[in-house]
C-alpha cells in the first residue's frame, strides 16, 4: 500500500490519519532490514530520536541523511574511520530545520569517505550497490542517499554536492537530485570538503518533494557567513505555475556522451519544445577548464579542512585516513605551499572568476543550460580506482556550475540499452531554484520520467 508513495503523498496519508508516523517508520525499517545488507545504504539507523507524532510540516516523515551531516546524538562518520566513534553534540542546520518541522531522520547514508569520490567506493565502510544492478556503483559521493530513494528505503534523502555529488548519483540511480545555489542551503554542521563549493540538497522521487524539502532547508543561517540573506520562495507553489522558458544549448556540454545518453537528451529537448520552451544555441567556456580549476581549489580546501583530524581528538589517528584522503591532502598541501600558491590556487581562483562571468553572460539570454550530469550511465564497481582523477573527469559537466555556484537539477529521462537510468540536468541562474524546479516539474508532468522511477522501485517489492 505504501510502496513508492512520495513524501507529499505520505504526508497526506498521515494527515488523513490513514497511517501513523510510527507505522511509516516501521514500514521503512522493515524494508531497510530486508534490503540494506545487499545494498549497503545505511551506516547508522536513528535509534535515538522518537518519531514525532505532533503536527508540523513534516509530521514524522522519514528522511535519510547523508552521513556528512552532523546529527545530534546520532553517530556521524562521513564514511571515514577517523570519525568511527564520533557522536556529534549538535545538529547541522539542515537536520535541525527538518527536525523542527518534525521530520524523522531515519538513518545516515553511506558516501565516499569525506565525500572524496563519485562512486561511494572510497567509503571506509564498503561501497553502496546500485539498486538497478548490484555489480554497479550508485555514483557518489551521495550514492547512499540516491540508492536509498531509488530502492525506496526512504521516501526522500538529503545529500550534498561539491561538484556533482547529488546530480551524478541521482542520474545513475534514476531519481531527482537538486543542487541548490551555493549559499542557498546552509553548510553549518556539514563536514566540510570543499568549503567554497559544498551545497546540501535533496534527492527525491519527484520534483514536488524536492521543492518541499528545499522550502524547509533553504534560507539564511546565522551560523554560516556564506549563507545567503536573500529571501526564499514558496517553491511548492512556484513549480505549479506554467512558465515559458528558454533553454540554452552549448555544444561543449554534448561532447563525448555515450550514444544512449545523447539520444535520450535529444529526445528530452524535443519534450521541452513540445511544452513550449524555446531553445537557443550558446557558447560557454569549455567544461575542460573547470576540471583543473576545480581540482586545485577543492584539494586545497580539503587539505585545510582535514587538518583538524590530528589524532588528538575523535579517537583515531591519521593512519586511519584512506588512500584517497591522503592523496588529496598531499596535492592540496602542495598547491598551497609557499612559492606555489600564486601558480596554482590564485590562478585557479582567477579562472573561476571567468567561469562565473561566463555563466552570468549566458543567463542574460537563456534561463537554463541543458546537459547531463554524467556522460555515461552507471559504471561497474571497481572501474573508478583504475584511473586517477576519474571522478573529476566523470563530473566535468557539473564542475563549471559548481565552481560558479549556480543551481542544477538532475532528472531521469530514460534507460540505456543495459536498462540503466540516464539523467538530464538543467542548470539555472543564481537563486533561480524555483525556475529550475518549475521546468523539471513541467517535464515530469509531461513524461512521468518515462516510468523510470517507478521501474526502479518495483524491483524492490515489500
Amino acid at each position: 500500500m505504501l510502496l513508492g508513495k512520495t513524501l507529499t503523498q505520505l504526508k497526506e496519508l498521515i494527515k488523513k490519519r490513514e497511517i501513523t508516523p510510527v507505522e511509516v517508520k516501521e514500514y521503512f525499517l522493515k524494508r531497510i532490514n530486508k534490503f540494506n545488507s545487499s545494498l549497503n545504504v545505511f551506516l547508522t539507523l536513528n535509534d535515538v530520536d522518537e518519531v514525532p507524532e505532533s503536527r508540523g510540516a513534516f509530521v514524522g516523515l522519514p528522511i535519510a541523511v547523508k552521513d556528512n551531516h552532523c546529527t545530534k546524538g546520532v553517530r556521524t562518520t562521513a564514511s571515514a574511520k577517523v570519525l568511527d566513534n564520533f557522536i556529534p553534540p549538535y545538529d547541522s542546520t539542515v537536520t535541525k530545520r527538518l527536525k523542527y518541522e518534525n521530520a524523522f531522520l531515519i538513518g545516515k547514508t553511506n558516501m565516499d569517505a569525506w565525500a572524496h569520490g563519485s562512486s561511494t567506493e572510497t567509503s571506509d565502510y564498503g561501497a553502496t550497490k546500485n539498486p538497478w544492478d548490484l555489480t554497479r556503483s550508485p555514483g557518489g559521493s551521495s550514492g547512499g542517499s540516491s540508492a536509498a530513494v531509488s530502492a525506496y528505503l526512504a521516501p526522500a534523502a538529503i545529500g550534498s554536492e561539491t561538484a556533482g555529488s547529488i546530480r551524478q548519483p541521482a542520474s545513475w540511480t534514476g531519481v531527482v537530485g537538486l543542487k541548490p545555489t551555493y549559499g542557498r542551503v546552509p553548510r553549518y554542521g556539514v563536514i566540510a570538503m570543499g568549503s567554497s563549493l559544498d551545497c546540501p540538497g535533496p534527492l527525491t522521487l519527484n520534483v514536488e518533494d524536492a521543492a518541499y524539502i528545499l522550502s524547509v532547508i533553504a534560507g539564511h543561517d546565522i551560523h554560516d557567513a556564506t549563507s545567503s540573506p536573500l529571501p526564499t520562495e514558496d517553491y511548492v507553489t512556484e513549480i505549479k505555475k506554467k512558465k515559458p522558458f528558454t533553454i540554452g544549448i552549448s555544444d561543449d556540454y554534448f561532447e563525448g556522451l555515450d550514444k544512449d545518453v545523447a539520444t535520450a537528451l535529444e529526445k528530452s529537448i524535443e519534450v521541452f519544445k513540445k511544452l513550449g520552451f524555446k531553445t537557443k544555441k550558446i557558447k560557454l567556456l569549455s567544461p575542460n577548464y573547470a576540471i583543473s580549476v576545480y581540482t586545485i581549489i577543492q584539494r586545497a580546501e580539503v587539505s585545510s579542512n582535514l587538518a583538524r583530524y590530528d589524532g588528538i581528538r575523535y579517537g583515531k589517528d591519521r593512519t586511519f585516513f584512506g588512500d584517497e584522503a591522503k592523496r588529496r591532502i598531499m596535492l592540496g598541501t602542495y598547491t598551497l605551499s609557499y612559492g606555489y600558491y600564486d601558480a596554482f590556487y590564485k590562478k585557479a581562483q582567477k579562472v573561476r572568476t571567468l567561469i562565473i562571468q561566463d555563466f552570468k553572460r549566458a543567463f542574460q539570454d537563456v534561463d537554463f543550460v541543458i546537459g547531463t550530469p554524467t556522460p555515461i550511465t552507471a559504471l561497474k564497481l571497481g572501474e573508478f580506482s583504475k584511473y586517477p582523477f576519474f571522478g573529476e573527469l566523470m563530473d566535468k559537466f557539473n564542475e563549471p556550475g559548481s565552481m560558479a555556484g549556480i543551481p542544477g537539477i538532475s532528472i531521469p529521462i530514460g534507460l540505456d540499452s543495459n536498462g540503466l537510468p540516464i539523467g538530464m540536468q538543467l542548470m539555472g541562474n543564481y537563486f533561480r531554484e524555483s525556475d529550475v524546479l518549475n521546468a523539471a516539474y513541467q517535464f515530469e508532468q509531461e513524461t512521468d520520467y518515462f516510468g523510470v522511477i517507478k521501474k526502479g522501485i518495483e524491483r524492490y517489492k515489500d
Partner: protein
Amino acid sequence: MKQYKPVIGLEIHVELKTESGMFCQCKINQFTSLPNSHVCPVCLGLPGALPVPNKKAIEWTIKIAQALNCTINKHTKFDRKHYSYPDLPKGYQISQYDEPIAINGHLDFEANYGTNKNESKSFRIHRVHLEEDTGKLIHKGDDTLIDFNRSGTPLVEIVTEPDFSSSTDVKMFLEELHTIIRYLDVSDADMEKGTMRMEPNISVRVTSNDQISNSKQEPISKFQLPNYKVEVKNINSFNFVKRAIDYEVKRHIELLEQGKTPPQETRGWDSDHNKTYSQRTKEAAHDYRYFPDPDIPPFEFSDEYIESIRKTLVELPHTKMYRYIEILKLKPMDAYILTRDKNTTKKFEIAISNNLITKNNISPQTVANIFINKIGKQLPSKTDKAIVEEIFSLHKLKQDLSNFLNPEEVCEKVIQNNPNVVSDYKNGKQNAIMFLVGQVMREMKGKADASVVIAKLKSQISKIHLKSQN
C-alpha cells in the same frame, strides 16, 4: 671603529574583551570557569562547524588602529594559517595575511614629560590585524591537558616597524600602548592573565663609529636590517621585556665580536634566572600555507563605517594630558601622572566640575594634588560623591588650618627662631627678609598674602631694634 646598534621590533597581542568569541557565540570567560566549560562546536573546531566573524571585534580592532594613526584597509579578509599544535583545534588559525584590517600607523608620545629629560618619541606601526586565540595547554606530570575556554577569543596583533634601538624606548612605548588600549576600553590588557602578550624581535647591527653621529633615532630606510633576528616569546611584563632585550643585545654583541652571526631562532624568557633560552630554530622554514578562509566572505568597509567608528574614539591620554596642562593649568608632571589611568581621569573630571568644588573655588591643581597624594591609591573603592566630599574636607581643613593661625603670631615665632637672619637684615642685608617670608609662608601652608607678611615682619623687627637700643 666598530659600533653595535640594537634593532628591535615588537609584536603585541591583545585579547579583546568582547562578550562573545571571535567566530562563535561562546561567552568569553576563561579565567573564572572550569576548563572546557565555555566551548561550542565552533571554538572546538568540531567537524562541520563554521566561523561567523564578530562585528564588535572588527570594530574594536579598527578603533585600536585609529588610535595608532593607521590607515584602515577598506578591503580586508580572513585567512587560514596552518600549523599543527594540540591547542589549535582546527589545524589552522583564522588570522589575516596580506590584507590586514590596518597598516602604516605611528604612536607618538612624550618621554619623561615634565622633566628635563623630556623627549618626543615616534614609532611606526607596521600593521594591526585580528585573529582568534588558541586553547591553553596545561602540563600536569606526564600528562598534557587542553583547555579550550580561551580558544576563539578575539586577539588583536599589533606589529611595529623595527624602529627601536633601546630597551628603555621599548618599555616606554609598551607602557604608552597599554595606557591607550585601556583607554579604549576594548581589553583588560592584563599581563598577569596573558590578555596582553609581548614578543620583541631583536637583532644587532654593526656600524662604523662615524655613521652614528648622535644618539638620535635613524630612519629605518637609512640602513640595512641585519640578516637574522631573534624572537623572544610570551613575555608578561614590561620590565621582563626590557631585561630580555638587554640580555639578548649583550649576547648578540658577544657573538658578533667573535665574528659569528647569532642564529635566527625563537627564544623563551626565564624570569627566575633573568635570561632567555632557545626554543626552536629555523623559523624562516615555516610554511603556514595561508589562503583566504572560504568560510568567511571578504569585507568591504565604507568610508561612513570607518568614520562612524572614529567618532567613538575617546580622548586619548596624550591629548588629555595637553588639555590638562593648557586648559586646567596643571603642572605637566601632575597632568602626566593623572592621565596614566582612564578611571582616574574620569573621577578627576567629575570632581573638578562638581558644584561643591567649583563654588568653593578649589582649583583643578588643588584637586590634582589631593588626587595624586591622597586618593589615587584607593580610587576603585570610592564613589564619586565620596571623592568630592573628601577633597572638600581636605581642602577645608587646610583652609581652617591657615585661618586658625594668626599671621602676627607666626611672624613672631619665625623671628624668634631665626635671630641670625634677623641680625643680618638689621645689618643691611635687605634680602634676608625674604628668607623669613618664606618661613612664614611655609608655616601657613601658603595661605597668606606675601606683602602683608613682609609688612608685619618689618614692623616687628623694627620693634626689636628699638628694644635693644633702649
